[in-house]
C-alpha cells in the first residue's frame, strides 16, 4: 500500500481514538465528575469571581440564549472597533493599515460566527494585535459558544428535566478551561517544535541564493494555528492559510492540524452517549456522519489522484496527481482528505487552493457545507444534526401513524415549525445569495464600483459560477474556506456574506436550543412497545435519507450549473 494512503488512514484512526477518549472526558466534565483537569478549578473560580457570576444559578432555555446573544454582541462591537483602528494599536511591527469599515464588518462577523472567511490577507491587512486579541480570542470564544449551546441541548435531553438547564457561563468557561485551552497548548507546542514561528518579531529581509531580495512575513503563529483547528475555526495567520510553509511546515504538523480539526466534533457525538448513558444512540449518529463523509471523500480522492484530464491532454506526466494549488509535502491524496474534512466540519482552513481542485472535488466540498451536519462545527455540527433528527422522527411517526416521540417527549406542530424553518433557512440563504450575485454580475457588469462586477471572478464559465456558489455555501455553513479566486474584498461581497454568516450562525443555534427547551418542559412519556427506537440502524438510515433529500433536492440545480457542468465539459 502506498505511503500517502497509509498516512490518511493513520490520521483518521488516530483522530477516532483521541475523540473517544476526549468524548468520555467531556461527559465527565459536564456531569461534574472528577477529571484530570481539576487543577484548573482555581482558575475557573477566579474567572467567575472576577466576573461576578454565580454558576449555581440555573437558567431556562430563554435565559441561556439571552446570555449567549448578549456576550456575542459585545464581541462583535469589540472586534469591529479593533479592526478599523488596528494601525494605531500596539503590536503592529509591519505597519499595516486599518481595515475599511465594510471589510471590518465582514471580518468581525466572520470570526464571531466561527466562520473565518478571510476577505483580507493576514500578511498585509491584520496586525499581531488583531490576530491575537481579536481573531485568536474569538477562535476560543466562538468555539466555546457552540459547545455551550450544545450542552444546553444535552441537558434538555436528560430524563425528567424541566426548566433548569444549567448555567450558560459555567458551560462556556469550562469549555475553554477544560477542553480548548489545554489541548491547544499541547498542539501549539508540537507545532512550535516543528518550525512554526512563535516570536513577535516582524518581517525579515533576506537575499536569496540567486540574489533576489525577499521579505518574509512571520509572527507568533503557532498559538493561533492550534486553536484555529481545534475550534473548527480555520482563520489562519497567512494569506495561503495552512498551505503556507510557516503555517504547516511538514507532514507531522499537517497530521496534527487534521486531527485537531476533527476531534471535538466527533468527541461531542460520543460525549452525548456517555452523558445520557445512551452509547448506542451515539454510535448510530457517528455511523451516519461517517458514511456521509466517506461518500464525499472517495470521489474527491479519486479525482485528485487521477489528475486533471485537461493537463493530461497537454502531454505532461501526472503520476503525482493534480498539483495546481497543492504542496509537494502533503501530496494530492492527503490534500483531498483535508479538503473534505475541512468542509464537512466548519473549519474551512485549507492546505491547498480549493479553487484549483477538480470539479468533482469542488462539488463534494460544497455538498459537505450544504449538509453542514456530518461532524460539523464545534457544538453546532450536532445542533444541525439535531434538526434533521427531529424531522426524521416526525416523518417516521407519520409513516407509522403515531404521534412522534423523541427521548420520551412528544414532537408537535411548534417544534416541527422551528425545525423546518431552520432546515430550509440554509438552502434559502445560499441560493438567494448566489442568485443575487449572479443577477448583479449579468445585468450590471460595468457598475461603477470599486471592483466592477465583471472583475469579480477569476475563472470564466461554469467555474466562475461555482466561485460564487461556494462563497455563499461557505458563509452560510460558517465554514470560511473559499474559491479564493473570487475578488471578495469589496462592498457587495463583504456586506452580503456578512449578513449570510450571521443568519447562518445564530438562527441554527437558537432553533435547536428552543426546540430542546420546549421539549424538556413537556410531560415525560415512558418508553413503550410503540416507541420509535432512536438507537437502531433503521433510524440511522432514516436520518440519512432526510439529510440527502433536503440537501439534494435543494441544491442539485445549483450544483448542476456549476461543478457538474464543468465536470462534463472536461471530457
Amino acid at each position: 500500500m502506498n505511503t500517502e494512503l497509509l498516512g490518511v488512514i493513520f490520521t483518521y484512526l488516530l483522530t477516532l481514538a483521541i475523540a473517544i477518549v476526549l468524548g468520555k472526558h467531556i461527559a465527565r466534565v459536564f456531569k461534574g465528575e472528577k477529571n484530570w483537569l481539576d487543577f484548573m478549578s482555581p482558575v475557573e473560580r477566579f474567572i467567575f469571581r472576577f466576573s461576578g457570576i454565580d454558576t449555581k444559578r440555573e437558567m431556562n432555555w430563554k435565559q441561556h440564549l439571552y446570555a449567549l446573544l448578549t456576550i456575542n454582541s459585545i464581541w462583535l462591537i469589540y472586534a469591529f472597533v479593533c479592526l478599523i483602528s488596528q494601525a494605531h494599536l500596539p503590536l503592529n511591527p509591519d505597519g499595516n493599515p486599518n481595515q475599511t469599515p465594510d471589510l471590518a464588518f465582514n471580518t468581525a462577523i466572520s470570526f464571531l460566527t466561527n466562520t473565518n472567511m478571510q476577505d483580507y490577507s493576514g500578511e498585509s491587512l491584520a496586525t499581531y494585535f488583531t490576530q491575537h486579541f481579536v481573531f485568536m480570542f474569538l477562535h476560543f470564544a466562538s468555539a466555546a459558544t457552540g459547545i455551550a449551546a450544545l450542552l444546553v441541548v444535552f441537558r434538555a435531553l436528560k430524563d425528567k428535566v424541566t426548566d433548569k438547564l444549567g448555567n450558560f457561563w459555567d458551560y462556556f468557561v469550562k469549555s475553554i478551561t477544560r477542553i480548548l485551552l489545554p489541548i491547544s497548548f499541547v498542539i501549539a507546542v508540537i507545532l512550535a517544535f516543528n518550525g512554526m514561528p512563535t516570536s513577535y518579531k516582524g518581517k525579515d529581509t533576506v537575499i536569496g541564493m540567486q540574489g533576489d531580495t525577499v521579505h518574509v512575513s512571520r509572527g507568533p503563529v503557532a498559538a493561533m494555528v492550534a486553536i484555529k483547528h481545534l475550534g473548527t475555526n480555520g482563520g489562519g495567520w497567512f494569506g495561503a492559510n495552512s498551505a503556507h510553509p510557516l503555517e504547516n511546515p511538514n507532514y507531522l504538523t499537517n497530521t496534527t492540524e487534521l486531527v485537531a480539526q476533527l476531534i471535538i466534533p466527533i468527541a461531542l457525538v460520543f460525549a452525548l452517549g456517555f452523558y445520557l448513558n445512551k452509547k448506542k444512540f451515539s454510535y448510530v449518529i457517528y455511523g451516519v456522519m461517517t458514511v456521509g463523509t466517506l461518500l464525499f471523500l472517495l470521489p474527491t480522492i479519486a479525482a485528485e489522484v487521477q489528475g486533471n484530464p485537461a493537463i493530461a491532454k497537454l502531454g505532461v506526466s501526472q503520476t503525482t496527481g493534480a498539483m495546481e494549488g497543492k504542496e509537494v509535502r502533503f501530496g494530492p491524496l492527503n490534500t483531498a482528505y483535508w479538503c473534505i474534512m475541512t468542509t464537512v466540519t466548519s473549519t474551512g482552513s485549507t492546505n491547498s487552493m480549493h479553487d484549483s481542485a477538480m470539479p468533482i472535488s469542488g462539488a463534494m466540498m460544497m455538498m459537505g457545507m450544504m449538509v453542514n451536519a456530518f461532524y460539523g462545527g464545534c457544538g453546532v455540527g450536532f445542533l444541525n444534526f439535531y434538526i434533521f433528527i427531529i424531522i426524521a422522527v416526525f416523518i417516521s411517526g407519520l409513516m407509522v401513524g403515531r404521534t412522534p416521540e423523541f427521548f420520551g417527549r412528544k414532537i408537535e406542530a411548534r417544534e416541527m415549525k422551528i425545525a423546518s424553518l431552520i432546515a430550509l433557512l440554509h438552502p434559502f440563504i445560499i441560493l438567494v445569495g448566489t442568485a443575487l450575485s449572479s443577477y448583479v454580475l449579468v445585468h450590471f457588469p460595468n457598475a461603477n464600483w470599486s471592483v466592477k462586477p465583471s472583475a469579480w471572478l477569476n475563472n470564466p464559465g461554469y467555474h466562475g459560477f461555482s466561485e460564487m456558489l461556494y462563497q455563499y455555501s461557505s458563509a452560510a455553513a460558517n465554514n470560511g474556506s473559499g474559491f479564493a479566486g473570487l475578488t471578495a474584498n469589496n462592498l457587495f461581497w463583504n456586506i452580503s456574506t456578512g449578513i449570510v454568516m450571521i443568519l447562518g450562525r445564530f438562527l441554527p443555534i437558537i432553533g435547536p436550543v428552543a426546540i430542546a427547551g420546549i421539549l424538556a418542559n413537556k410531560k415525560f412519556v415512558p418508553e413503550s412497545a410503540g416507541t420509535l427506537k432512536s438507537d437502531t440502524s433503521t433510524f440511522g438510515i432514516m436520518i440519512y435519507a432526510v439529510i440527502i433529500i433536503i440537501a439534494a433536492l435543494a441544491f442539485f440545480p445549483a450544483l448542476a450549473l456549476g461543478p457538474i457542468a464543468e465536470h462534463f465539459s472536461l471530457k
Partner: protein
Amino acid sequence: MKTYILPALKLTVILIVILAGVYPLIIAGIGKFTPGHGDGETVQYKGRTVGYALIGQKFTKDEYFWSRPSAVDYKADASGGSNKGPTNPDYLHKDVQGRIDTFLKHNPTVKKEQIPAELVTASGSGLDPDLSPAGAKIQVARVAKARGLSEQQVSTLVDAHIEKPLLGVFGPEKVNVLKLNIALDELKK
C-alpha cells in the same frame, strides 16, 4: 438586561487577558527552545543568511534545480496560489503550455511526457519549498551540463537529499530545493 451585560463584559475582559495575552506568551517562551528560537529557522551559506529553511525561493538559473512555479513570484509576504480552475482555457493554454515550452527549451534531453505536472503547475502557497524526487531527477541532466559535472554525481546528490515519509511510512517523499542547491554549490569546490 443588567444581569447579562455586566458579567458578559467582565468575562470578556478576563478571557482576553488569559487567551490572547498569557497563553501565546507562554508558547513564545517555549518557542525559544525550538530550532529557530521561535523566529523561523534560517539557512546560512558562506557566512550569510540565504533564506528560510521552510520557505521556497526562486531558482531559475540553469545551474540550479528549479523550484515549482509560483503564482506570487515567491514573495514571502504575499503568499497565495493562482486560483485558476481546472478548465480555465487561459490557464491551460497560456500558463501551463508556456511553462512546458520553457522547460523543454532549457532541458532539451527531456521528452514532454516525462515532465512531472508539479513543475508546470503553481503551488498552493506560492512558496512550496519542495519537489518530488521525480521533479528533481528530471532536472539532473540540465544541471550537470550547466555545471560541468557528471550526471551520476548530481543524481547521487539528489538521492542523498530525498527526505523519507514520516516514520518511513506516512506521506510522500520530497526534496528541499534550497538545501539541494546549496549542496550543489558546495560540491563545485
